[in-house]
C-alpha cells in the first residue's frame, strides 16, 4: 500500500471502491481481510483528520513564517 499522500478525496474514492469490490461478491477470503484492514485505515485517517489539524496547523504556520513564495506546494491537502 503506497505511502503516497492521502487526500480526503482519494481516501473516500478508495474506500468506496473497496465497498463496491466487496459488494460484487467476487472477493477472496484472504483478500477480504487485507481490504477490510485497508478500509479501516482509511476510515480512521478520515475521521481523525477531520478533528485534528494540529499537524497541518504546525506545518502551515511554519510555511507562513518562512515567508511568501516559500510555501510548500505539497502542503495542500
Amino acid at each position, binding site marked *: 500500500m503506497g505511502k503516497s499522500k492521502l*487526500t*480526503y*478525496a482519494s481516501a*473516500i474514492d478508495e*474506500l*468506496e471502491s*473497496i*465497498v463496491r469490490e*466487496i*459488494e460484487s*461478491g467476487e*472477493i477472496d*477470503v484472504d483478500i*477480504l481481510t487485507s481490504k*477490510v484492514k485497508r*478500509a479501516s485505515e*482509511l*476510515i480512521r485517517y*478520515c*475521521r481523525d*483528520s*477531520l*478533528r*485534528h*489539524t*494540529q499537524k*497541518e*496547523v504546525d506545518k*502551515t504556520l511554519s*510555511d*507562513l513564517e518562512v515567508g*511568501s*513564495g516559500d*510555501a*510548500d*506546494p505539497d*502542503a*495542500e*491537502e
Partner: protein
Amino acid sequence: MLEFPGQEAYSGLSVFSLSELNAAIKESIEVSFPETLWVVAEISEAQCNSKGHCYMELVEREEESTIAQIRANIWASAYRSLSRKFENATREKLRKGMKVLLQVNITFHEVYGLSLNVKDIDPTYSLGEMARKKRETLERLTKEGLIYLNKQISLTMVPQRIAVVSSVTAAGYGDFINHIEGNKYGYRIFHKLYHAVMQGEEAEASVISALRAIRQEIHAYDAVVVIRGGGSQADLSCFDAYGLAVEVAKFPLPVITGIGHERDDTVVDTVAHTKLKTPTAVAEFLITGMKHFEERVLEAERKIVRLAKELMKEEIHRFRFIVQNFKHVLGSRLHQENKTLEITMHSLIHGTTQALDAHRNRVKLTLSRIGVALKGFFQMQDNRIRHAEQAVRLLDPINVLKRGYSITYFKEKAVKDGHELKEGDIIKTRLHNGTVKSKVEGNDGEK
C-alpha cells in the same frame, strides 16, 4: 461708486470697490436664481466639521475629466435629517463618489464666494444611479468572462484551511469563529484572519489588499471566506465596486461570501464561488460539508462491516460444510479401509492357516514317506544283513565244517592246493568236531 486718489485719470470709467462688485453679483444671483433648484451632481469631496455642518465639492464628470465643479454646504440641522433620509432609502452613507439629486439654493457670499446651499435630497435618483452602476459593472464583468470564473474552481471535498477576510472588530467575525470552534462534532478548521476594513470608502482598497496578501500564501489554504457583521446593513456599496469584483473573480481559490445583508446580492456575491447570507451561515456551510463527508465515510464503514460479516458467515458455513463433508468422507473411507483390512486379515489368517495346514500335511506326508522309505531302507538293510548273516553263517567255516567239510592245515596254513603236499607231510585236519593229525600217503595227482 468709488472715490479714490487720482480718480481723474479714470474719468469715464466705472470703477467699483470689491465689496461693491460682490454685493452687486450677490444681488444679481439672488434675482436670477430666487428659488431652489434641483441639481444632479457627483460628490467629489465631503467633510463635516465639529459643529455638524457639511462641506462638499460637487462635480460633473465626462469620461475622466471634470467639466463642472462647485462648492456646496449643508447646515448641520439640514444635514442630520438629510443624511438619515438618504441612508434609510439607500442603506448607504452620503459620501464621495455618490451621484445625488440635491435641492439647492445658489448663494453668493461676498467673502466666501459662490456655493450651493443644500436643502434637500432625493435618494431615488442615487438609488437609480447605484443600480445603474451596478448593472453596468455586472455587464462589464460578464463581457470580460469573469462572472463564472471563481465558480469554476472546484471546492475541495473538505475545505479545512481557511483564509478569512474580515475586520477583527466585526461582530460577524466573532460569530464565525465561535460557530467553527464550538461545532458539536469536534471538527477542527485551521483559519487565519486577514484584517480589512469592511465598510466605507477605504473598504474596497482594504479588501483588495487583504486578498493580495492571501495570494502570497495561497498554498496554505483551501478557500477564502469574506465575512462581515450582520449588524449594519449600510455601506455595502464597496462590494459593488468593479475593482474588488475583478479581484474576487480572478482569485485562484474559491471565495465564499457571508456579507450579512438581506437585499439583493452585491456584485462580489455574484462573482464569488458561493454566496451565503451571514458569517454564521458560512461557518455552518463548512461544518455541514465536513459532516456530509464523514457520513459518507461512516456509510462505507457500515456497509463493509455488514458485508464482511455476511461474507465471513458464508465462509464459515462453507467451511463447516467442508469439515462435515470431510468428516463424513473420512469416516466412510476409514470404515471402508477397516473393512478391507478385516477382510485382508481374514484372508491372511485363512490363507496362512491353509498354508500352514498344507505345509503341515506336506511335512506329515514327507515325514511318513521318509518313515516308509526309512523303514524300507532299514528293511532292506535288515534283509541284506540277514542275507549277509545268512551267507556268513553259511560260509562260516564252523557251519561249513558242520556240513562235513574240513580244513586241512599244513604248517599252520590252510592247504588249498594238493600239490603243495608231498608224501609224508604231516597235516592237520580240522573237522567239525575235533582235529585229526595225518600223514600224507600221496595225492591223486590232478595236475
